[in-house]
């Protein structure tokens, strides 16, 4: 009995390109459709997309490089406050503030990444926790600069859409939405490109086995620090747009550890070390609590959220995107091709049903599989952040 499923498509073939372009077209269509929603929904969606962007930043450090961060709320806040202070006190063009904010968050990320050279796993998580705890306190400590506990307000007239967009003041939500959507799009493309590059391989190798990575010539110090910097910068950029959208900032309300936990939760719900996981995760962590608020006047909201979280870890630990990828591989499979040697003759198609069924935990039987889309390789979804072996852990 020969089954026609799964359908095999060669990577970088016309069919594969067509699928990719089709996927991007569908996503773009969804984004355009969403922009026609009413202002309230659009505002919610804007925040969810900003969460998604922040989670994509976190994904680089935690998902791909294995550095668990509980301090990313600080980067989000740092970006937001950089924009807020430059616009409110120095009258900058809001969009121009993205540049210094990204540079600042990158620099802070490098500094936070510094301890990761000596401190690993759960200890590093606690160092980033320190950052997350310290940020609101620092904001409150310098009220002259940041507005302190009272908060920082930006005049609405400084945040209006520019004239060339043709968006009226009443519809300004559309402008903020597109800012968030564009930022997310750019970040996703950047992350997808980066994680499929040589640098991405170095990141994953660092995550999976540090010693082996170093032996293969990966510069651990530079990889970890640069990734943390980039990760912080991306999350910071999301914070910038958050400030532009909201117009008023309060560290005690928006940028506490709770935000960090929301971001980590979103990352795990969406799918660790996947390209689209942050998008699903960002939408989920914003909308699930919002919907469950309507049940029993919100009293049970947190309870339901907690139960969902635990259940998710038991039912689909690879996250929604991971689950979808796994299921879709029964129907469609992308056959990986080596990226560097286009002149090499194409390999014969594998039998429709491989001799060794891929299940989580099995080894890729081909070295080229290392270049494959991470969704197609079960091993890369393992996110061991520290050794499970008590002999080395304790």
């Amino acid at each position, binding site marked *: 009995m020969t089954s026609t499923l799964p359908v095999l498509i060669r990577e970088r073939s016309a069919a594969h390109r067509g699928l990719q372009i089709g996927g991007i077209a569908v996503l773009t269509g969804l984004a355009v459709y969403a922009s026609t929603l009413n202002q309230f929904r659009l505002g919610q969606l804007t925040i969810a997309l900003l969460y998604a962007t922040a989670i994509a930043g976190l994904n680089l450090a935690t998902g791909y490089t294995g550095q668990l961060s509980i301090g990313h709320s600080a980067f989000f806040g740092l970006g937001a406050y950089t924009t807020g202070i430059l616009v409110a006190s120095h009258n900058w063009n809001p969009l121009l503030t993205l540049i210094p904010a990204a540079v600042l968050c990158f620099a802070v990320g490098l500094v936070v990444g510094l301890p990761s050279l000596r401190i690993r796993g*759960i200890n590093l998580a606690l160092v980033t926790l320190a950052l997350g*705890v310290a940020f609101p*306190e620092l904001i409150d400590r310098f009220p002259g600069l940041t507005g302190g506990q009272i908060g920082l307000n930006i005049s609405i007239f400084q945040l209006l859409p520019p004239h060339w967009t043709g968006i009226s003041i009443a519809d300004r939500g559309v402008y903020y939405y597109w800012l968030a959507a564009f930022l997310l799009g750019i970040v996703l493309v950047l992350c997808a490109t980066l994680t499929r590059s040589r640098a991405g391989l170095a990141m994953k190798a660092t995550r999976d086995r540090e010693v082996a990575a170093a032996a293969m010539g990966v510069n651990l110090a530079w990889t970890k620090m640069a990734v943390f910097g980039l990760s912080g910068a991306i999350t910071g950029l999301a914070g910038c747009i958050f400030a532009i959208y909201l117009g008023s900032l309060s560290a005690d309300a928006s940028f506490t550890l709770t935000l960090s936990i929301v971001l980590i939760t979103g990352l795990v719900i969406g799918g660790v070390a996947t390209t689209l996981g942050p998008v699903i995760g960002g939408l989920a962590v914003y909308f699930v609590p919002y919907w469950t608020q309507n049940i029993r006047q919100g*009293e049970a909201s947190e309870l339901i959220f907690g139960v969902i979280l635990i259940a998710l870890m038991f039912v689909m630990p690879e996250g929604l995107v991971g689950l979808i990828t796994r299921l879709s591989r029964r129907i469609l499979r992308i056959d990986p091709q080596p990226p560097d040697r286009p002149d090499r003759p194409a390999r014969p198609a594998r039998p429709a049903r491989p001799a060794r069924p891929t299940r989580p935990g099995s080894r890729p039987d081909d070295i080229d599989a290392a270049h494959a889309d991470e969704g197609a390789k079960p091993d890369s979804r393992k996110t061991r*952040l520290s050794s499970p072996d008590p002999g080395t*852990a304790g």
Partner: protein
Amino acid sequence: MQIFLDRLFDGISNGAIYAALALALVMVYRATGTINFAQGEMALFTTYLAWGLTTKHIPVAVCLLAATAAGFVLGAASERFLVRPIEKRSLLATLIVLLGLFSVLNASDGLIWGKGNQSMASLFPNKLSSYVSVFGARLYWANIGVWLLVAAVVAGMFAVFNGTRLGLHMRATANNRESAALTGIPVGRILMLGWGISAAIGAIAGVLFTPLTPDSLGLGEMFPLLIYASAAALFGGLDSPGGAVIAGLIIGIIEVMLPAYVPVIGGQLQEAIAFAAIVLVLLLRPQGLFGTREVERV
């Protein structure tokens, strides 16, 4: 001198509570290799339980015992049914499950006992007049009681760790789970026991800490405590019970003294400074003050 002593007594009381919670965190870390983010919420849940019993005119000592027993069951059940099935997958998955447990416990507190803050009866006399004078400073009996009870718990734990067969099994399991299992130690039961004891210690800490300040039993009470306790556990070395206790005391005292004597810090930066100091220590000694150096086999 008098003000200094007042502050010192406060610092030691807070430090004793941090030490107890840090000890609980270390026990879980040694068993499972993770920080129990729900540790504070387990303690809060059992504290609420004790408070609920005190409102029914049951003696506080009985409530403390009930809370400790409930904590033990809660901790052991969490290990068996939530952590053990998931911990093999990844550290991140375990942390998320614990965050979920955090959410569930906190929300249950609110649903069962209401969201308003409550005052809790103390195990020790805690009237404004029940103190002894030490160089003019007031040392309240409640503080002394907290110190003694925490000291007793810590001493008891060390006696169990170092003097009993059970403690030997626990140390063996923490050291190498596979080897321990091969020598016939019931590793699963030991892990449950470790989590159970750890949550029981947390329950004692919660019941002791809450009466020190009126109106302090609320949904947000334990989270700051957990932060300080994790800082203490990290500072002392995550796998070192003794280190956790010493570091807990140090952090409790520093937290009171720093804002008082270093004006730049003021009332707002105490957590930030405490953490900055700890990060610096970790940079020099990544394993913490008393932790075992991590050796990686290749």
